[in-house]
């Protein structure tokens, strides 16, 4: 398939700068990146490096100042869709859980009962069906993030964009949700673009980890992590990959391996 050869998402010389009080800050300059269909790609890097900006550009929430972004259409020629999971769950407080999950579906031509049925299915997938009629303020942080994930999955996006979705959670909940994401991703075979500043998390979840550093950001490392899921967190290959990225980030030159 020609589309797959070119990648699902292609960033071509992407640049983004903003101006505040007369000073121009370049977040991204001349960034090239190709994301394949079905890939789980993690963007790692320190806070403020521009990882989230890349997601926002792909989601159409920010306009690049130069360069292009191309998202390949589906096989039937219709445009591919993306859906976003934010760091804060960003649920609408006046909607019950199920109606939060159905939010994006209201854009599609569906009857209310079809929307609800789909939303229930998604709540099932994230194992929250029992809380369908609750309001967001009645949920824990982890539950909210599950709702947010269900909301994004409900629209059956071609690409799932996740912006540090677990970074505000406590470590136990974070691990649980990471495993949930692995399970859900295996069930849905989604292309995932996952932003995190946690290298362990990136290496545990992703097929490919890209390290961004510097200002404007450039790709400092691009590693394949070819270990099948489910993975052991302390698997030597993951530890080695983590170590490698850490060193790259610390600026040490390191013989380039072919990943793990």
């Amino acid at each position, binding site marked *: 398939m020609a589309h797959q050869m070119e990648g699902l998402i292609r960033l071509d010389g992407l640049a983004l700068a903003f101006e505040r009080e007369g000073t121009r800050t370049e977040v991204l300059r001349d960034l090239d990146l190709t994301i394949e269909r079905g890939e789980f790609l993690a963007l790692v890097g320190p806070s403020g490096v521009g990882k989230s900006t890349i997601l926002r550009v792909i989601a159409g929430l920010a306009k690049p100042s130069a360069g292009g972004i191309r998202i390949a259409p589906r096989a039937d020629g219709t445009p591919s869709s993306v*859906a976003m999971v934010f760091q804060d769950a960003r649920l609408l407080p*006046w909607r019950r859980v199920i109606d939060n999950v159905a939010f994006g579906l209201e854009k599609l031509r569906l009857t209310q009962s079809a929307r609800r049925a789909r939303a229930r299915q998604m709540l099932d997938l994230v194992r929250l069906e029992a809380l369908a009629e609750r309001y967001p303020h009645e949920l824990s942080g982890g539950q909210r993030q599950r709702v947010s994930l269900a909301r994004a999955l409900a629209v059956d996006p071609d690409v799932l964009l996740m912006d540090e979705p677990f970074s505000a959670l406590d470590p136990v909940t974070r691990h649980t949700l990471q495993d949930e994401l692995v399970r859900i991703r295996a069930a849905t075979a989604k292309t995932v673009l996952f932003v995190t500043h946690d290298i362990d998390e990136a290496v545990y979840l992703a097929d490919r980890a890209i390290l961004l550093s510097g200002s404007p950001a450039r790709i400092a490392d691009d590693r394949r992590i070819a270990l099948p899921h489910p993975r052991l967190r302390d698997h030597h290959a993951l530890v080695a990959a983590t170590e490698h990225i850490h060193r790259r980030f610390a600026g040490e030159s390191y013989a380039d391996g072919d990943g793990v």
Partner: protein
Amino acid sequence: MTRLKRLGLALLGLVVFLALWEAMPRLGLVNPALVPGPSSLPRAFWKELISGQWSEAVLGSLGHYAVGLVVGIGLGAILGILTGMYLTIEALLAGVVRVLRPVPGLAWVPFAIIWFGVSPAAAVFIIAVGVFWIVFFAAFGAVRSVDRDLIELANAFGFRSGWARLVKVILPAATPGILVGVRTALGQAWMSVVAAEIFGVAGLGQRMMQASSLLASDIVVVYMLTMAALYGLVDIAFLGLSGWLTRWKA
């Protein structure tokens, strides 16, 4: 303090108040024609009731009140929301708002009479003007303080038109703020009702002025208490409604 104790104390205070009020004219401390004791009120109320004037006045006032509120709240909310959503509209209206806002609602009475005569329409106009500004600023402020992140969320899910943003995010998010303004407006409008009717539009205020010119002070008090009771009922009903509308709040 337990709820029961609070309720008991409130009742006690009320009884003491009524007793003092009753004692003043009875002990000859004040002229009973100027301060009628509470014991004279039921008879006065009954007289007004069977003559049909009480219900006519109540219905008249509630009519102005309701129509004035609907017009004032409707226009205030619509313009307030638009001004909150669009910087262009805000800039466009900034000058007009600066000129008109400081004009007290009652300063519109002369124009109300010139335009509408001493008629229910004049009362509605005066009420609506007062309500308009309160709701306008409440709606404007509420829309402005809607969480930007939620609007971005709407964008991310493809709700990008002004209408979609309004319906999906802005209106529900701004509702609690708008309701606070509406509650203030309910009280303000009630004052305007009485003011407009004191100028002669038929209703509670007008009936009260008639009684006053006949020195029927007991009837004046009956209408004062009627106003208090009606406002109390309206406020309770409104609290119920707004509690239901914002039932999602923690």
